[in-house]
């Protein structure tokens, strides 16, 4: 399906209908959408049409009805599998309890820790792999959550814009987190063009970004993208301190260490704004979003947890965490 999609995207818009049939069939037969390379690569390419630039991104495809129809089938399957698999806390929460619930959910450390491994034990090769895995999202850092800005109002909107402004460098292009990460990749000898490593990362890594695009691009899921951001920010500062230690230990360039150190300080600010003003504010203004705020946070923890487990398990076996070593 993904190969056929690439042919469609590089061919003529008339080919969309046959691909949509293929996508509907693929969505039906997939054993597990989160681990389905074909399904996740297809979603990545389709969502990429809304971001760009990339070699497969051409304007006429973005709102093409057949591609959107096929994408909807893939999304329905992806969301369905997420709703079935993601463990969500069963406590009922009113709006006032949301910030505390999010801090409690993200305070639980389950299983082995990728950042601890990076800090103390990882080899240089493993550290490079972790940059490649991270690049799938981080070269677009903050963008999927920005889709939510016009869908919010009042205190939650102000909070999201305050966080995103900092993510985008607050008026200083060189301090845009996407740009800091691109410099880190360049300094580590990696290719910082968007999508350069899409063929070597596993489905779960693509699923991590596709989750954000799914939640960000649907107004219906505005609570979930807010919960996702809150959980992401709340699980960033302390691990980024460990990543910075690890990359320094391994002798990586200052540009790489700088990326992680920036996030130690930035995300300690963002987590407070995201938990209290963004998620807490949305929960108060729009209480029907509360279950999805919790779901989005839980989905972030679940999917990113699976990515971390996959990487650690591969390294434990003495293998690469990539589909094919870069």
């Amino acid at each position, binding site marked *: 399906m993904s190969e056929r999609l690439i042919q469609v995207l590089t061919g003529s818009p008339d080919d969309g209908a046959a691909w949509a049939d293929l996508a509907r069939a693929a969505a039906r037969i997939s054993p597990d959408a989160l681990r389905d390379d074909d399904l996740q690569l297809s979603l990545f390419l389709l969502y990429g049409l809304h971001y760009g630039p990339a070699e497969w991104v051409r304007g006429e495809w973005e709102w093409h009805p057949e591609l959107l129809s096929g994408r909807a089938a893939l999304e329905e399957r992806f969301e369905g599998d997420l709703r079935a698999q993601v463990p969500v806390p069963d406590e009922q929460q009113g709006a006032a309890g949301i910030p505390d619930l999010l*801090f409690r959910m993200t305070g639980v450390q389950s299983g082995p820790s990728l950042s601890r491994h990076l800090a103390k034990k990882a080899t240089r090769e493993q550290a490079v792999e972790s940059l490649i895995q991270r690049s799938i999202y981080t070269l677009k850092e903050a963008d999927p959550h920005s889709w939510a800005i016009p869908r919010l109002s009042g205190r939650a909107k102000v909070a999201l814009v305050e966080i995103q402004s900092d993510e985008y460098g607050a008026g200083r292009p060189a301090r845009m987190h996407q740009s800091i990460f691109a410099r880190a990749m360049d300094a580590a000898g990696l290719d910082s063009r968007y999508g350069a490593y899409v063929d070597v990362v596993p489905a779960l890594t693509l699923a991590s970004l596709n989750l954000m695009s799914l939640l960000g691009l649907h107004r219906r899921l505005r609570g979930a993208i807010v919960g996702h951001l809150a959980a992401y920010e709340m699980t960033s500062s302390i691990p980024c301190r460990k990543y910075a230690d690890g990359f320094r230990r391994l002798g990586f360039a200052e540009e790489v260490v700088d990326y992680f150190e920036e996030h130690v300080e930035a995300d300690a600010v963002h987590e407070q704004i995201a938990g209290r003003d963004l998620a807490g504010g949305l929960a108060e203004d729009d209480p029907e979003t509360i279950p999805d705020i919790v779901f989005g946070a839980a989905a972030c923890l679940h999917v990113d947890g699976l990515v971390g487990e996959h990487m650690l398990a591969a390294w434990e076996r003495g293998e690469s965490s990539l589909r094919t070593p870069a």
Partner: protein
Amino acid sequence: MTGAASGVPVTITPCPNGPLLVRGDFRLDDGSEPHRRTVALCRCGVSTIKPYCDGTHKLVGFRTEDEG
């Protein structure tokens, strides 16, 4: 820390069990430039990047019970 002569008034927001968020035209008296418009100042005492917060308060069970 003092407010600048012009611009946005300084506000300080205490986060329950967490840092102080500082916004507005503030400066640090140690002569350093703040890295961002909104900063979080450590008040648990264990941050490794003082005066800024690095989230470590969550690991040491820092509480500000009086603020609820």
